[in-house]
């Protein structure tokens, strides 16, 4: 009976029924800026004016965290304060399993990596957040701030200054 390793499946929020309704409702609202391309249906005529159309930018969005993610982010902040960065990161990853496309969570995780001294990952997570944050100047600005900090820690001061400038220009208006 000696020496066994127990394997447990991931503690997932929804293991039991796989019932999506157990999940807190996804709170973010990034609507597709395009029509349902799955059916390749033509967009409304108004959208076809310029060749190729430069879609009139939708009003800026603002990402928020859902209730489950909010609770987890709060928990991660506590864990960070008590110095347990590994645990804090695992907690943010839990939130990401619920909202994988929320840039705010990628910024949170990037901040933890930055604090842990992993500027390379902090930079990458900032860029991932940036890609997801399209249309949300606030989130884009936070992502650029993270990237700037990470680049500075990597000694890439010129790029860091440029990132800082972009962060600033997004919040200016």
């Amino acid at each position, binding site marked *: 009976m*000696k020496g066994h390793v127990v*394997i*447990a499946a991931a503690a997932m929020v929804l293991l039991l029924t796989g019932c999506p309704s157990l999940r807190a409702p996804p709170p973010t609202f990034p609507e*597709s800026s395009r029509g349902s*391309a*799955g059916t390749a249906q*033509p967009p409304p005529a108004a959208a076809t004016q310029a*060749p*190729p*159309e430069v879609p009139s930018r939708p009003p800026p969005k603002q990402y928020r965290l859902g209730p489950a993610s909010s609770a987890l982010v709060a928990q991660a902040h506590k864990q960070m304060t008590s110095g347990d960065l590994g645990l804090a990161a695992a907690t943010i990853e839990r939130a990401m399993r619920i909202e994988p496309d929320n840039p705010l969570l990628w910024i949170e995780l990037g901040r933890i990596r930055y604090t842990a001294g992993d500027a390379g990952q902090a930079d990458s997570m900032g860029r991932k957040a940036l890609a997801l944050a399209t249309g949300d100047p606030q989130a884009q600005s936070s992502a650029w701030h993270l990237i700037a900090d990470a680049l500075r820690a990597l000694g890439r001061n010129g790029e860091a200054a440029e990132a800082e400038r972009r962060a600033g220009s997004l919040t200016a208006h």
Partner: protein
Amino acid sequence: MQYRRVERLERPGTYREQGARLDIALRPAQFADEARPASILTIATGSNNIESLRDSSGKDVPIVRLEPLLIGSIFPIHGEDRIVVTPQEVPPLLPAALKAVEDRNFDTHHGVDPAGIARALWVDLRAGQIEQGGSTLTQQLVKSYFLDSRQTLGRKLREAAMAIALETHFSKADLMNAYINEIFLGQDGDRAIHGFGLASQFYFGKPLAELDLSDVSLLVAIVRGPSYYDPRRHPDRARLRRDLVLKLMAERNIIQPADAQAAAKKPLGVTAKPSGTYYPAYLDFVRRTLRRDYRNEDLTGEGLRIYTSLEPRVQDEAEHALEHELERLDHAHKYPDAKLEGAVVVTSPQSGDVIAIVGSRNVGYDGFNRALDARRPFGSLVKPFIYLTALESGRYNAATIVQDEPVSIKLVNGKVWQPDNFTHQTYGPVPLVRALAESLNLATVHVGMDIGLAKISQTLQRFGLPRAPAEVPSMLLGAIDVTPMEAAQMYNGLANGGFKTPLRAVRAVISADGKTIRAFPLQVTPVASPETIYQLDRMMEQVMDRGTGKPAHAVLPPNLVVAGKSGTSSDLRDNWFAGFSGSHLAIVWVGYDDNMPTGFTGSSGALPVWARLMASLGTTSWNAPMPESLAQAWIDFPTGFQVDASCTADATPIAVPAGTQLPMKPGCGAQQSNALESIVKRAGEWLRDIMH
């Protein structure tokens, strides 16, 4: 999870339903990052959603975790899986019942029990058949541990000697616990069910501690002959023996006769199928991950807990989709004697979590794991990486006209390579998006030779191809051997916006006292710009809408946006389909183990498996935000001319760098009234594009 419905909540693992309100007594659970005590959760439901989650004090609960499912145990020595239980996890009835039925003098004998043998002999003689064995629990344990089951006198004597030796070294409590964790209780294909912990999951789908009197009695009944008393195959026999066990327990005053009678009235309560908690292909991947970091000796530390990313429901759907579709394909097939094989890997693209692995259509079989070990030609699955490299060059976009025309390439060895299209036809000038969607070989070779093999090789390796491919032109049609897992790693980068994330099955290894020994944190590395990946992914969306992936839409939920690519190697030996939604990436390979041609393509072989699986997952649409430097355009799919979206049924949306000028289809352009001049100018550009 086998929570039991009750009238009054009494213990963990039960629930009570009262109209729209559900009270659940959650089991205590140990997670990778925290322990949760047993607790009560109240769910208020609406017509088809959840209104609220509250704890026992009425406070809102923002998030609830279901306890991790135990999916197996690794014994480095035996190489088999068990669910080891501690004495505290054993219902007290179990040892009492075992003693009553199997070994009355267990507490006092020294390993063998002459009185027991005599009694058994007497009972058996009277009955004219073997009803009682004379072996003590200790002897049975020895037999199970060390010896084969031949009934010879020599073996019996050795068994007795070893039993006596065991008794001198270990306490009765230790021996009972060893027995409970060791004894053979059933067979599941090639897998032996040892120990009551695993047997409880195997027969009832719940932890040993939650079994009631009737359940415990059935397991004790099975000890005598797991095959003869198999409750699924021989329920009547099993029931008779269970009732005998109940009667014996009442006779020995372990339980009240009334309880015995009540329990005897209950059905056997076994699940219809062995609970699907045996995933050998997935465990294999976990074992290999750990072996990378640990030597076998280090893994023998007792009580290590390994938390994995497996999603049992997705795993079950993947197994089901593969089994079902291969069965269908076998029937439709020209080699009635040969059996198709297959493999499936499913990931969660943003986290890199591997959530399901199927290594064979024979899913419970711990044999050749095709998902990890079948290295087969990539076929047309290589094409997205070629087109991505083309987009990165800045000289191509989705509407760029490429030539699908015969090509001859002189190879280093002097031979001439003349690839052909799958249909043996040529299609002339086509836009890039169509060349990808219809998987045109000749157009792809033209693009690939223009871009350069070295650049394409770099792209492949950036996305995770672990070996440098031979830089020969046939590489452009997928003459590169990869395993389904490697394909999953590479496609994960396409599904994750150009970020590479090492695929992982293990989240954390936790010591017996709850400390994290090893974590596998999420890592991302940008391997392509968000802009080029977005353009490519939109093209892969057209594979599904207008190209080789189109049949999937008959199966998928309406309006679900997915992107993918089919692949077929030469002579139809390998069928691939790789594709993703917003939350799942799935890779499917179908072929014969002996590399025989299958007679069908990626679209007819692997695609049905993929589509059936994706349709079952309740997955979300692929819906990445379009980078601000890109714009959407509509083109005529056959010719690549820009069109007004409502002008033709062939109008196809693509993403191109903002400001890209596209030639317009005469009579169908979006801005015909605008300026003849500009059309002339663009036509000139278009001609230049064709020329180069």
